[in-house]
Each structure stands twice: as structure tokens, then as C-alpha cells.
């Protein structure tokens, strides 16, 4: 993986060139530049390769309050909510949602500038019963929390 400079900008790999950098409207206060879309991470097909693409294996942190249902009525829409207890884990700049057994585990990335609360809520597809990971990046370090969600064969099985 390329070297990570302070703004989290990965080395301009060939793949990254293809996606336009979102130009942020120039405004008087300090411009917060979003990092590029982590293409390699989105294309990774295993949990390990995904962590690798994001910058290495995260360490568990209970500063990540990760809510998912224990059992999902349908794997097509599984609500996930990530809150950060900033008293335990501060300066979180990115939040990743990862579904271990999906064809591509990385499902979503949320980048938050300093004055935004590190929080994210969405709904993801979970291919089969397995672990979901909420990964947070703070000061270049990766932290994670893991939860298992059971996906049942809904309906009458037909």
C-alpha cells in the first residue's frame, strides 16, 4: 500500500486517477479535502485484503458503539449504526462498514471533518450470517468493533 501522508491521501495509484476528486466549494474557512474513494479497498474480496488496503489490521476499541440487529429478517436490508464515544476514541476522521462474508467486504466509507460528529447510519446487504465490522480511523490508526448478524431465509422458504 502507498505511503499515507497526513491527509490520508493514498499514493495516486492508477485506479484512483479514474475517479474525479470532488472539488469542494472554496470558502473562507479552512477547506477540508476529502480523501479519494479507496478503490483498492472496495475491490478487495477478503476481510484481510480489505484491512490491508485500508492500512493494516485494526485494533479493537470499545470507543466504537456499533449497533446491528442480532438477527435480520432479510439480508438485503440490514440497518447498521456507528457512534463514537469520543471520551474513549477521539479525532476519528473516517468510519468504514465491512461485511466479512460479502463478495466485497467493504460496503461503505464515511469521512467526517473535525466539526462533524463521528456517526454514521445506513443499511447494507449481508450475503449470509457472519461478522460485521465497524472500523474507525483516528490519527492514522485503525480501530474496530465486530458484531455477528444472523441472516435467516425469510418467508415461507419458497
Amino acid at each position, binding site marked *: 500500500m502507498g505511503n499515507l501522508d497526513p491527509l490520508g491521501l493514498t499514493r495516486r495509484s492508477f485506479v484512483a486517477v479514474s475517479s474525479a476528486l470532488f472539488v469542494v466549494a472554496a470558502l473562507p474557512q479552512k477547506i477540508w479535502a476529502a480523501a479519494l474513494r479507496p478503490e483498492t479497498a472496495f475491490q478487495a474480496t477478503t476481510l484481510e485484503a480489505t484491512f490491508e488496503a485500508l492500512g493494516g489490521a485494526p485494533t479493537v476499541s470499545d470507543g466504537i458503539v456499533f449497533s446491528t440487529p442480532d*438477527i435480520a429478517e432479510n439480508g438485503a436490508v440490514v440497518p447498521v449504526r456507528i457512534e463514537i464515544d469520543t471520551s474513549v476514541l477521539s479525532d476519528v476522521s473516517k468510519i468504514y462498514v465491512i461485511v466479512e462474508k460479502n463478495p466485497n467486504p467493504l460496503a461503505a466509507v464515511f469521512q467526517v471533518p473535525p466539526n462533524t460528529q463521528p456517526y454514521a447510519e445506513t443499511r447494507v446487504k449481508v450475503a449470509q450470517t457472519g461478522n460485521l465490522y465497524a472500523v474507525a480511523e483516528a490519527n492514522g490508526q485503525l480501530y474496530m468493533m465486530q458484531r455477528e448478524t*444472523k441472516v*435467516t*431465509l425469510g418467508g*415461507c*422458504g*419458497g
Partner: protein
Amino acid sequence: MQLLAFILFSTAVYADEAYNVLLDSMKDKNFVTVERLEQDELQEFCSQPRSASVDQARAAKLREAALKGVLIPKDERYLGDWQLGEKVASNGRGLQYSDDPEQENGGNCYACHQLDPKEVAYGNLGPSLSGYGARGQSAAMLQYTWTKLWNTHAYNVCSHMPRFGAAGILTEKQLQDVMAFLFDPNSPVNRSQP
């Protein structure tokens, strides 16, 4: 006698009206045709609320007919491969117009029964069958269970369980595998704890 005749007459007329309405309201799709709307005597007799009064004489006649129609497996081999049986029990497809008629039908046992205690997604329309093997494999128990699968009405007229054997839903081989899934000590039905 008139009263009985009247009851029989009225249920017959009503049954016909329902059939005619369904005939007008449905159409063939893929391999499923409207012939399926025609009721046999058992279906017609059982098309009433549980609370309805049951004509015991007719019920007994239907029960005997069901029992008589049961085909015991060749050389009385009741038990097949429980791993294949597990697949039959989990497969909810078969005989729907959305299914592939070339594929084997499923038994969908998990739809209504608890089987392997570790499997969370089970229904409760039927009793739990977890630990069924503890009943032992006496000839009587094997025959009872086989008959129940083949045509449950041999014991319980107007039961809601399909006639897996009598209606040709599952093959003899599939039934033997399901029986193994129920009886075999190595089957998760008997081995694993919740």
C-alpha cells in the same frame, strides 16, 4: 335422514361454487394447470374450519382409505441417508409454477417443524421433532413415522400436513432420507443441543 341429505347437499353446492369461482379467477402458468383446483373427497371434506362439526362416519372412511393406500418401501428399508434428508427438509421449492419441474421437490419440513435444535429458522405449525431418534427404531415406530409422512390422514384426518407420499410430492428415496434425518443417531436432529 333429510337433515343429513341437506347438509351433504349444501356443502356440495357451496364447494362447487367456490370451485367455479376459482376456475374463473385463475389460469394455467408454466406446468401448473387449473386441474389442481379439482378437489378429491378428502380435500372437499376438510375444506372447513377446525371448529366445524365433523361427520365421524365419513372421517373414519377417509382414514381407512388413507391407511390402505400407504406403500411400504421395497424390502422394508425405511432409513436412507440423513445428510440428503436434511437437504430435503430444508428445501422449500417444488411444484410451484415458479419452480423448475426437472428439479426434485423439497419437503420444506423446517417450514413447520423444529428439527436440528441449532437451526434457528424453523416453524411452529407442527410439533418440534428435535430428538425424534430417542423414540427408537422399532418396526412399529418406523412404520408409524413412514405412514405419517406418506399420508398423515391415516392417523389424523384433515391434518394440515401435506401427503408427501400419497400426493407424489417426495419420492420413496427422499422419504427414506427424511426418515434417516429423523432417526439416525448421527443426524443433528438427535445429536446437537440447542
